[in-house]
């Protein structure tokens, strides 16, 4: 091995970082070369001097500063974890959203069911009252085609003055009036006839209600038409077909 090559490797040789073959070659060279042996000794002495004198010792306070700061930071982490509302995890947020959806769904379902149930129950009562009136010998208590007889009859029997019109000219002769009990209250009923069909028009006071345009419903084969006008709610029910029932509504 040439000296210049050996001088490159002698440091690594001293450090024990040479591969076996390089190591053996350098060892052999140093054995035979006084100059390189000198260099090796120099490197060793310098290494020793630097190792012994070069170190800058860390200040005594550094360790406590570092690990104290880390412990403080770790405590803050723990404190954050102990107050889950401050940092709601993703799972908690999702669970809350799901619970809110469930609650909303329950409330909506309940609301729709009960409001639909009420409407359906009222229709059922109207139809029942109508059928009940047909089961009697007569559907009327005051028989008169004269509106001036029927209207005063209602005075003192219901809490409002119903509009009573005789519609014989229009093909809806007025048979008379009657009291009935629908929707948990006493209501007035006007009975009209159309050919062989009987039409019951139930009326009750609906204070504070807006006027409502006629809406048609069908229950058990009967047509029902309801509307509200001037604070009075009307339900017309009959086995008449819907268009004729609507015509009657227009005349009333």
């Amino acid at each position: 091995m040439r000296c210049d090559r050996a001088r490159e490797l002698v440091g690594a040789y001293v450090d024990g970082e040479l591969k076996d073959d390089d190591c053996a070659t350098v060892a052999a060279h140093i054995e035979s070369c006084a100059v390189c042996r000198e260099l090796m000794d120099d490197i060793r002495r310098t290494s020793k001097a630097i190792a012994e004198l070069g170190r800058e010792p860390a200040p005594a306070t550094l360790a406590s500063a570092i690990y104290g700061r880390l412990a403080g930071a770790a405590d803050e982490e723990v404190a954050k974890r102990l107050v889950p509302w401050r940092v709601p995890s993703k799972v908690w947020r999702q669970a809350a959203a799901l619970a809110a959806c469930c609650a909303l769904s329950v409330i909506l379902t309940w609301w729709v069911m009960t409001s639909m149930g009420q409407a359906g129950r009222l229709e059922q009562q109207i139809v029942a009252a109508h059928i009940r009136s047909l089961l009697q010998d007569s559907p009327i208590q005051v028989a008169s085609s004269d509106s001036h007889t029927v209207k005063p009859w209602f005075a003192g029997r219901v809490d409002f003055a119903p509009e009573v019109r005789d519609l014989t000219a229009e093909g809806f002769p007025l048979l008379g009036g009657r009291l009935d009990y629908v929707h948990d209250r006493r209501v007035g009923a006007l009975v009209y006839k159309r050919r062989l069909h009987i039409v019951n028009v139930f009326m009750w006071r609906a204070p504070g209600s807006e006027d409502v345009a006629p809406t048609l419903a069908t229950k058990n084969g009967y047509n029902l038409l309801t509307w509200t006008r001037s604070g009075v709610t009307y339900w017309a029910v009959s086995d008449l077909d819907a268009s004729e029932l609507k015509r009657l509504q227009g005349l009333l």
Partner: protein
Amino acid sequence: MSELSKFERLTRPHLNAAFNLAFWLVRSAPDAEDIVQESYMRAFRAFQGFTGPDAKPWLLAIVRNATYRWLSNRRRAANVISLDEAFSGPGEKAAEAQFASEDPTPEAHLIGEVDRNLVRRALAELAPVFREVVVLREIEGLAYRDISRVTGAPIGTVMSRLARGRRELRKTLCRLLDEDEPNAL
């Protein structure tokens, strides 16, 4: 055992090494303290990802990165040229090219009387790129493989930088010895 006490058990023995490396790169004890604190915070945050058996090279690599980040920040903030750069002379490539044409005669025989002050002045005169490998090898006793892990340089580069750094250091030591004791020889 908590994560923090595990971290402390693994890193506390290397605190002197961490401080020493940072000190020799910035050559200011207060700055080195700040850098080491910052490095340990970073190391703790990255601790989950640490799986190796030997924490020293891992930790020193973090310290070295933090130091160079700190140096470049300071340089940018102060808008000044660092003395290290101004006096490092020819770049590393030129330095390595010079290596083969070295005078075969040993510079001088170093005697046991080099004192602490001389060693530190000689180390300070080394260009940083050589100083860091010399510090890691001579003071910290790291194997070449570990120096390579800390500095990110290949082992061959570590070996040549170390040879060059040692040679520079010997030259400087001889010169300083001559200056200090002109009558000694």
